[in-house]
């Protein structure tokens, strides 16, 4: 099911995510020392272009990566094929992208935060 | 099951068997036949995965210069065959082997072991006067057949796998072949395949001996069919024994399989039940003597022994150092270990084992037979080896003549038309094949064992007239008894027991021919050794046996060898040519 192109996309996004994940985990570990609060998290990320790019890249990568990954699993373990399989991949990728994008937006530039 | 139940199928070129002969024929027929010619392969097993060419270990004989010449290869072949070979066939074998090895490397894609300078590595089997044997480690056959198999699979020939040929069906007037009756083993249904030309490359296979090396699918079907079709078979007494077959008891298929020649070459010792080396009693070269001599030495030693628990002799390698043995003979050490023996440090029981069949259908140098439309190549064809086959000439023979058969059929097929089968013969062959299904089921195996014991005892490594007569009577008994053994007919799909029965039928038929030919030859040549006639006889008066059906009986006659190229005592080598180019170890 995996062609060279999907394979490369999956690997490239994986490589991209590896440092991002490590970074994210490090921040989280640091952050949760002594409990998490919204203000704490948001205080750090609000208005930061850097964090926007950091998490934005992450979300794009994970959407692509996860969608391709689930596609494989859905084919091998779920028996999905053809258009259903393609639809599944795109659907899942889009959901991740939308939810992820919304989350990134929320923690960086969304104005509702201060309301 | 009636004749009307037989499915009819047509093709242009039909090939039986996928050893070196069958696969090469398929490739070459595809190259020479006109565009659009339909080629069909029918085989008892899976394409390329059955037969003995795949099992070739040592390698492929071909004179490639460095002092070696086609002439020298030819002389070794004639001398090895004790002047019985058909010289034109032997010559063509040696000459074409040179072309075929280039074809294997360049067109088929085989890779054979190299020297440090990049050229092909060659070694010498016993009986050769030059380093001539090309090889891929000690798994040469796998490389040759895998590459051929790929080519043939990719070529788009029609595949009839697990189709067993059971009868050659001639035309009404008997002059030509119309088609071949087969059992589709997977369904148990019959199929008549008509073809303009048919190659029989079913590879003989002396598996009627208690100890034998060939692949399990080889049971002399081809020769039995040819005999019934009235063709002449030559040199049928010539059964080659390999001296060192593994002896692991009669409840394992491992018994009889080859422990390679190289073990003795490297210094392996043969030890009698009394713990003594004995080969020097038979030959100054000891364990390094030729196959026939060592086989007879072991056989004689076994007869002296009356310990019922130990039938064979031992091969012992441990004095060479277990690590050396493990490293140099990894494959053999592993194979012994798989059946519970330790070749590197212990000793392994061995016994001579029936290996190759020199006899076969009488053919011309283009593989044509006396029956129009039928061609025979490989181990099924007689003549090229005479009384003994040199190690390395077997696979050369099947690939060279398989290719020639393909070329010949590809050309002959032009202008030929499909022929109508003789329906009475067809009905008789069908009858014959379904006979066991009409009898009360019983075990086939005990009869096969009985035949194997008999052939080993009476028509084996050493023979006598009286013994072979006993053998003949015994074979007749097994033959008769077999007709009372039926096969469960509840499901004919992949019914191996039915095929065991048919296998034994072929083996009985050919065992009789071997024995009759053995009785007819009252001298000792090559593989055929008569204790009551130990002399070889005058080479100038050499003749070969020819067996043929005459009415219900097998008749054996003798025909003089035609020395078309070289006469005994002469040579085609230049006068000053050295006796051997092989460095003495």
């Amino acid at each position: 099911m995996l062609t060279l192109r999907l394979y490369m996309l999956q690997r490239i996004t994986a490589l991209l995510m590896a440092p991002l994940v490590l970074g994210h985990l490090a921040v989280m570990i640091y952050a949760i020392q002594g409990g998490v609060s919204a203000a704490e998290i948001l205080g750090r990320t609000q208005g930061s272009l850097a964090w926007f790019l950091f998490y934005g890249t992450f979300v794009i990568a994970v959407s692509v990566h996860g969608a391709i990954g689930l596609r494989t699993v859905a084919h091998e373990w779920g028996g999905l094929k053809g258009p259903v399989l393609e639809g599944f991949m795109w659907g899942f990728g889009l959901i991740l992208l939308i939810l992820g994008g919304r989350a990134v937006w929320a923690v960086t530039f969304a104005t509702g935060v201060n309301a | 099951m009636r004749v009307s139940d037989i499915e009819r199928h047509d093709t242009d070129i039909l090939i039986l068997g996928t050893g070196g002969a069958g696969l090469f024929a398929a490739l070459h027929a595809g190259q020479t036949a006109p565009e659009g010619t339909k080629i069909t392969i029918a085989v008892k097993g899976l394409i390329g995965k059955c037969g003995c060419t795949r099992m070739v270990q040592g390698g492929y004989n071909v004179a490639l210069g460095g002092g070696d010449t086609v002439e020298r290869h030819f002389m070794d072949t004639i001398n090895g065959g004790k002047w019985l070979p058909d010289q034109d066939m032997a010559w063509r074998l040696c000459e074409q082997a040179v072309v075929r090895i280039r074809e294997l490397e360049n067109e088929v894609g085989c890779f054979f072991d190299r020297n440090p300078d990049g050229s092909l590595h060659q070694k010498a089997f016993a009986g050769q006067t030059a380093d001539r044997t090309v090889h891929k480690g000690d798994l040469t056959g796998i490389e040759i057949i895998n590459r051929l198999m790929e080519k043939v699979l990719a070529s788009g020939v029609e595949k009839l796998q697990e189709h067993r040929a059971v009868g050659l069906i001639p035309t009404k007037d008997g002059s030509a072949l119309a088609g071949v009756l087969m059992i589709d083993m997977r369904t148990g249904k019959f199929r008549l395949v008509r073809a303009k030309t048919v190659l029989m490359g079913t590879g003989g296979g002396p598996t009627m001996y208690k100890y034998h090396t060939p692949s399990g699918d080889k049971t002399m079907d081809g020769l039995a069919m040819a005999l019934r079709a009235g063709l002449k078979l030559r040199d049928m007494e010539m059964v080659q024994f390999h001296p060192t077959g593994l002896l692991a008891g009669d409840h394992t298929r491992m018994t009889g399989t080859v422990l390679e020649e190289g073990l003795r070459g490297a210094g392996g010792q043969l030890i009698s039940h009394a713990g003594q080396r004995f080969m020097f009693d038979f030959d100054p070269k000891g364990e390094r003597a030729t196959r026939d001599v060592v086989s007879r030495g072991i056989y004689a030693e076994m007869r002296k022994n009356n310990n019922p628990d130990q039938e064979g002799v031992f091969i012992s390698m441990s004095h060479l150092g277990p690590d050396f043995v493990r490293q140099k003979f990894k494959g053999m050490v592993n194979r012994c270990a798989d059946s519970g023996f330790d070749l590197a440090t212990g000793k392994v029981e061995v016994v001579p084992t029936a290996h190759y069949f020199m006899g076969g259908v009488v053919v011309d140098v283009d593989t044509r037979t006396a029956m129009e439309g039928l061609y025979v190549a490989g181990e099924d064809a007689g003549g090229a080896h005479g009384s003994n086959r040199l190690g390395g000439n077997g696979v050369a023979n099947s690939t060279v003549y398989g290719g020639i058969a393909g070329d010949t059929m590809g050309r002959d097929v032009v202008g030929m038309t499909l022929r109508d089968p003789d329906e009475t013969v067809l009905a008789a062959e069908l009858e014959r094949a379904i006979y066991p299904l009409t009898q009360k089921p019983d075990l086939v195996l005990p009869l096969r064992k009985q035949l194997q014991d008999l052939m080993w005892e009476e028509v084996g490594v050493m023979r006598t007239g009286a013994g072979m007569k006993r053998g003949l009577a015994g074979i007749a008994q097994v033959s008769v008894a077999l007709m009372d053994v039926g096969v469960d007919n509840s499901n004919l799909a992949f019914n191996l027991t039915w095929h065991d029965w048919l296998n034994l039928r072929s083996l009985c038929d050919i065992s009789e021919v071997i024995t009759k030919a053995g009785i007819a030859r009252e001298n000792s040549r090559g593989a055929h050794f008569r204790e009551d006639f130990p002399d070889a006889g005058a080479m100038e008066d050499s003749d070969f046996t020819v067996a043929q059906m005459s009415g219900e009986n097998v008749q054996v006659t003798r025909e003089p060898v035609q020395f078309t190229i070289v006469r005994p005592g002469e040579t085609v080598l230049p006068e000053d040519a050295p006796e051997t180019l092989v460095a003495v170890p």
Partner: protein
Amino acid sequence: MPTDPPFDHLKVTIDRGPDANGAQTEFEVPAYDNQTVLDVVSWIQQNADPTLSYRFACRVGMCGSCAMMVGGVPRWTCRTHISKVLDGNAVTIGPLRNLPVIKDLAVDMDPFFDKWVAAEGVHHGALTRDDPIAPINETAPARVEANAGIECINCSVCYAACDTVSGNPDYLGPAALQRAWTLLNDAKDDGRVAILDAISGTGGCHNCHSMGSCTIYCPNDLDPMSAIAGLKRETAKSFFNTSFFKKDR
């Protein structure tokens, strides 16, 4: 010398395949000291159940016809000593996984070979029988790499061991891909473009998850997993040059 087994019979359970609706049959088989799995199966057919179907040819590990699932694991049966696979004195034998069953223990190996050919597992060359044989340095790294996989007997054990094959019917499988890698490294082979093309498609090498069952179970100690990794590397290299913008890559 092998020692006698500590029991006098084996309890052998055989999966009878689709004809028998997946039923199993149990047999008592006399135990011997030198006995392979193939011998056990043969004993049953020759003495107890004449209708039992299975396949073998060479009986010495050269033809690759005799592979079956033995105790849930794919193995060549002619070279597997029974003591290796017994659980107490019992063993279960079934048809090779991932291939259509013809009857009982005999499977149809055509899909395996069709994929072998589809992976361009066949020599591509311009030389003919009239040309001299190419001199080749056997110690050159590419040749060493090619030789590593050359002794494959196409037994399909790796194919049966691989879960990717079971989940993905298009996947070419370890043996065919290993053959492609061998050819890619063969100086005599001119099929580079065709091979890379064949192994980069939907059923290609990129489906392999490196689960390594092929390498673990190959009876000849070959390493298809590493061969496939080789293909992935080779295709990854060529990826940026050409393929990305072509359709269906």
